[in-house]
């Protein structure tokens, strides 16, 4: 079951940014999201979540000195959800065209204001039939914690498969082949996959 969670607000060939419809309700780090360029469904992995003021020049100020509870701040300042926003960035890892999933970059990035959906288990399983997307993660040069991202998406995909150990091992082996000459990095990722 896929859930609509936001809207594309910035896009380029390798990643896109989306604004979450709900403040503080961004999809989890490493989760699979789907946007569209009008023809193809474009899949991304959430690698960064930011919540900040809608006006980049004005930083939010602390308001809770006299409040007992954090929730009271929002209750007593109902304008806050309108002045703040939660954005998330996704690394593009593949797309689906004419029913076929391909794990390489799509011809075009997603359209701005296109809806972003959080993939359900069935879609995660469909997308992770192949493990080529792990190559996109470990070899990209974004300023993101890529090793954490690889580990997080493997964990989530394993969960979506009902805790399938053989999938975890298969993903680990794919990573071992990709990082065959960098054992330190492999070890770090494996430790994070194991939880």
């Amino acid at each position, binding site marked *: 079951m896929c859930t609509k969670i936001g809207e594309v607000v910035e896009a380029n060939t390798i990643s896109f940014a989306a604004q979450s419809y709900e403040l503080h309700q961004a999809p989890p780090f490493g989760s699979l999201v789907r946007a569209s360029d009008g023809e193809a469904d474009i899949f991304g992995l959430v690698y960064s979540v930011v919540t900040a003021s809608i006006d980049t020049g004005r930083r939010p100020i602390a308001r809770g000195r006299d409040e007992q509870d954090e929730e009271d701040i929002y209750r007593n300042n109902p304008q806050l959800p309108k002045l703040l926003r939660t954005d998330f960035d996704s690394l593009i890892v593949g797309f689906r065209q004419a029913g076929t999933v391909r794990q390489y970059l799509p011809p075009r990035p997603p359209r701005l204001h296109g809806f972003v959906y959080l993939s359900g288990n069935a879609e995660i399983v469909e997308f992770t039939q192949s*493990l080529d997307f792990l190559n996109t993660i470990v070899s990209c040069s974004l300023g993101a914690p890529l090793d954490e991202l690889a580990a997080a998406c493997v964990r989530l995909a394993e969960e979506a498969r009902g805790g399938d150990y053989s*999938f975890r*091992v*298969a993903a*680990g082996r794919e990573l*071992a082949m990709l990082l065959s000459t960098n*054992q*330190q990095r492999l070890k770090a990722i*494996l430790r994070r*996959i194991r939880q």
Partner: protein
Amino acid sequence: MNADRFFAIDDGPGGTSRQLGIVVSGSLTEGLEVRLASGVSVEDMAVGRYVTIEGKRQCFFGMVTDIRLETTDKQMVGNPPDVSDSFVADVIEGTSTFALLHVLPMLTIPRGAAAQLRNEGPQPVKTIPAHYSRVHEASEEDVSAVFGAEDSSHYFIGTPLDMETKVCLNLERFVERSSGIFGKSGTGKTFLTRILLIGMVQKSKAVSLVFDMHNEYGWKGSWEGHGDGVKGLKQLFGQKVAVFTLDEESSRRRQVQTDHVVEIGYDQIEPEDIEMLKEPLMLSPRAMDAVHALVKHFGERHWLEEFLKLEAKDRDELAEEIDPASGTLRALSMSLSRLKRLPFLTAHARQDCLKAILEYLDRGTNVVLEFGRYQDLTAYVLVANVLTRRLHEHYVERKEKAMGDKAQEPRPLVIAIEEAHKFLNPEVSRQTIFGTIAREMRKYNVTLLVIDQRPSGIDDEIMSQIGTRITCLLDDERDVDSVLMGVSGKNELKSVLAKLETKQQALIFGHAVPMPVVVRTRDYGTAESYREFGFREAAEIHTLVNEDLKLWDR
């Protein structure tokens, strides 16, 4: 990569044999490196095992000669991952850490209808398969395609390690050239020889003459740990085998049915025979000169008899005449008088045993000559040399006659000798008849089957003439080098040879097999094994005869 299929291991064409891995590098001379597929345990591999490699146009047949562990990142050696964690262990096995098989390609098996039409068998390898060709465990069919099924010329000698397929020797080729059975003491040389002799009795056109130093082949042989011993050739094949003995009394005590008692006359002993005894009789070069002088003096046929008859006074007179300078004759007389202690040596043999041997051999009967109690080297070397020298003369003469009349062609003869290094060591091999036979007697239909535990003692020149070598475990470096001399892939075979078990395992290579092969030799000594050789107990034959008679009566 498809995650669900990650662990699936390909079953190979037809699903008969398991895929082991892929070729990753290598050369024709040094062999191929095969990366073991994940999911195949390195502990399931063994040196000496056969593999097939699927090339594009032909299939390659090779042998695993080494197994090595590798890592993709050298850091893993100094800083190993935590394999107590089963997840980490499952991930790195076959990916970051893997095993390499060293495979020596030996043969190519042509594929396709055209090759089948030409009826092409396995050919020696002249090229190697391309990168990443798939490597499979050789199936039973592959092995039998290479080593042939049992037929009129192929003889079942044993099974490959971990397989039930039969490995067969081409006996026609085996007897074409001299061959050798090597191995240190207690590794089963005698059993192997018995099996081979049976093969020759059953399937070969050749006959054999066995100089049986320890009375192992004729009637009954010993079997360590089995008091009853094993049946010899005569018990199994009756009329096809004749047992000759040098020691009638010993044979009678052992209840051996002998066909002939061998006596050797002094008149049959020539200086060359004495030359062979230099070591056991401790003869100096001067003593040998004196022997030649005696031959000149008394004549070729009577020198030994006359010399041994001489009294001390007469001998001294003779010494004055032919060897005035030293006391060599006295020393020679003392040495040669040791021959008097051998009862089978007489002044004149009552019967010419060579004639008897030849009669049997001509009829296609194999001859085993038992030495009874005379198991010291002096007797063995002397008798083997005297008889073989005369056999040689006879064969040369007959072969020459056969050039004019094909019907006179002598039957191929295989002479089996033990302790072969005593006859074929570099010092004597040029002079003895055995050296001559090993070098050139193939042309005269005589070859040797040498049985030895110290192959390094055999002259290199002779060793290079040995067509088929069968070797059990050897652990002396020089012996191993000597056996493997002149063989391609020597270093690889060395590692295979060193890993043989001490019993019932042998490496066979050379003229009679298409490629080197390690076999577990077939059983010998149990009732079942005798049946496999075609032997039937008297009671069983009796029952069969009775059944036939009943059928006849109906």
